[in-house]
C-alpha cells in the first residue's frame, strides 16, 4: 500500500527529483529533496526542500476525495501565505503547490540536534533536559518565544487547529542575520486544519492541545514548561496592545484564558469519567 503511494510520488516527480520519506502521518506523507522545483540558481549544495503530499483516500468517493485534497492543500498554502505577512510570525516559505494532485512544496526549517533527533519542540525539550536539566535559561528562552509565536497568531485571529509539540520546529538559521549563534527561532508548521477565527473557544482549544502534548511527553517538568509558554503568550498580547485598541486586546486575552481554563476542566472531567 505505502509502497504504491511512494511509487506514485516518484512517478509524479520523475527521477530528476530524488526524494527521501521523512514522515508518514494519517493525512500526509512528507518528503525531503535537495532539488528546487523551478529555480536551478537556488539549488545550493546544502539546500533542502520539503514536499508534502496528501494521497487519495480509497474509501472516499473520488470526486469528494479530490475536492477535499485540494481544499486541505490550499488551506495550508493560504495560511503559509497569510501568516508570512504578519510581522513576527515564523512559518516556512511556500515554494509552489499543485492542489489538483495534493502536493505542496515549502522551505525546510529545523536541523538535527547533537543527540541525532530532529529539532522540533518535543525533541528539543528531551535533549535539553538530558544534557543539563538545571540550565533553565535556555529552555525558558525557547518556551517563552514559542508562547509568543502562538500569542501573535491568536492576536491576529488565526488558530492552528493541531498545535502539538511536533508541529513547532526550532531553527537556528544564523544566515538570516537576525539570529546569533545558539538562538532558536520557533516556526509553526502543518496548517491543514488551521483557520481564521475570532472565537476565544478555538484559541483555548489550541492552548489546551499544546498543554496536553507537553504534559504527556514531559510530565515531570510540564507545569513549569506550560507556565513559560503562557508567559510568552501573554507577552505577545501585551506587546501588540500598545496601539489604540489596547483595552480591547486585553479583554480578548482574558477571554481566551478563561476559555482555556474551561476547556481544561472539561478535559479533566472527561478523563475522570472515561
Amino acid at each position: 500500500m505505502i509502497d504504491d503511494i511512494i511509487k506514485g510520488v516518484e512517478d509524479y516527480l520523475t527521477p530528476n527529483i530524488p526524494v527521501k520519506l521523512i514522515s508518514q502521518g494519517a493525512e500526509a506523507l512528507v518528503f525531503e529533496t535537495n532539488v528546487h522545483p523551478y529555480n536551478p540558481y537556488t539549488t545550493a549544495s546544502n539546500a533542502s526542500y520539503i514536499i508534502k503530499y496528501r494521497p487519495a483516500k480509497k474509501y472516499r468517493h473520488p470526486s469528494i476525495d479530490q475536492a477535499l485534497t485540494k481544499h486541505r492543500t490550499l488551506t495550508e498554502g493560504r495560511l503559509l501565505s497569510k501568516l508570512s505577512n504578519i510581522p513576527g510570525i515564523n512559518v516556512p516559505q511556500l515554494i509552489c503547490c499543485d492542489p489538483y494532485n495534493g502536493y505542496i512544496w515549502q522551505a525546510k526549517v529545523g536541523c538535527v540536534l547533537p543527540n541525532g533527533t530532529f529539532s522540533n519542540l518535543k525533541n528539543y525539550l528531551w535533549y535539553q533536559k538530558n544534557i543539563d536539566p538545571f540550565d533553565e535559561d535556555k529552555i525558558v528562552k525557547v518556551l517563552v518565544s514559542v508562547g509568543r509565536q502562538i500569542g501573535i497568531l491568536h492576536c491576529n485571529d488565526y488558530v492552528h487547529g493541531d498545535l502539538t509539540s511536533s508541529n513547532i520546529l526550532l531553527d537556528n538559521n544564523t544566515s538570516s542575520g537576525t539570529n546569533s549563534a545558539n538562538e532558536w527561532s520557533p516556526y509553526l508548521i502543518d496548517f491543514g486544519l488551521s483557520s481564521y477565527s475570532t472565537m476565544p473557544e478555538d484559541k483555548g482549544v489550541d492552548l489546551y492541545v499544546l498543554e496536553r502534548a507537553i504534559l504527556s511527553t514531559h510530565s515531570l517538568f510540564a507545569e513549569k514548561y506550560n507556565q513559560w509558554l503562557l508567559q510568552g503568550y501573554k507577552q505577545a498580547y501585551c506587546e501588540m496592545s500598545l496601539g489604540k485598541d489596547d483595552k480591547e486586546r486585553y479583554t480578548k486575552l482574558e477571554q481566551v484564558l478563561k476559555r482555556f481554563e474551561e476547556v481544561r476542566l472539561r478535559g479533566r472531567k472527561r478523563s475522570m469519567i472515561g
Partner: protein
Amino acid sequence: MLLVLPQFPDYSISINLFTNCNYKGTTQALTSCSVEQAPRAFIKASNIYSTSHLLCAIYKSFIEYKYNRLRTKNLSTEVILSLYSSSNISEAFKQFGVNSDSVDTDNIIVLQIFNNKKSESYDANTNAYGIDNTLLFEILGKNSENLEFNDANLIKIRDISMIKKIYKIKHENSTNNDQIERCIINSIQLRGL
C-alpha cells in the same frame, strides 16, 4: 538561458533578456515572429523582480497545462497570465505583456517553451533564439542587447514600485528583498485557485 524544469523534462524553456530595445512592433508583428512549434511570449522585463519570480510563474503554467487546463493559447502565453495576481487575462497582458501600446518598453524578455520531441528545427547550440531572428531584431530594434537572464541583470532594470503596486505589497511587507519575493511567489502560486 535554456532551462529544463526537473519535473517536466520533455520541455525546454528559452529565456532571453533584451535591454535597450526600441520596440516599434505591433501585436501583429509579435504574432508573426512566433512559430507554431515554439510560440514566443514577450514580457515586460522591468516588472520581473527576480529569476524566481518568472520561473515560479513558468512552473505554475506547467501545472495548469498538465493537470488542469490552459486559459490562454499556449504554454508561453500562459506564463503571462500566471505572472499576474488575478485571473483577469486582459489585465495580465496589459501589465506583463509587450503589446501595441508598449512603445516605451526598453527591457523585454523573450520566452519560448517547446516540446523537445516536436521541435527538431530548434538548434540550441548554434542559435540561442531559435527561428525567425531577423524579424525578432526588427521588432526589438537594431540596438537591442541580449543580456543573460539572471538576478544581477534583473536588479538593474526592475521597477520595484510598479511591482509592489501590481502585487499590492504593503509597506510593512517590503522591509527586505526576501519578503518582497516571498509575497510575489505566494500570490502567483495561490492565484485563481
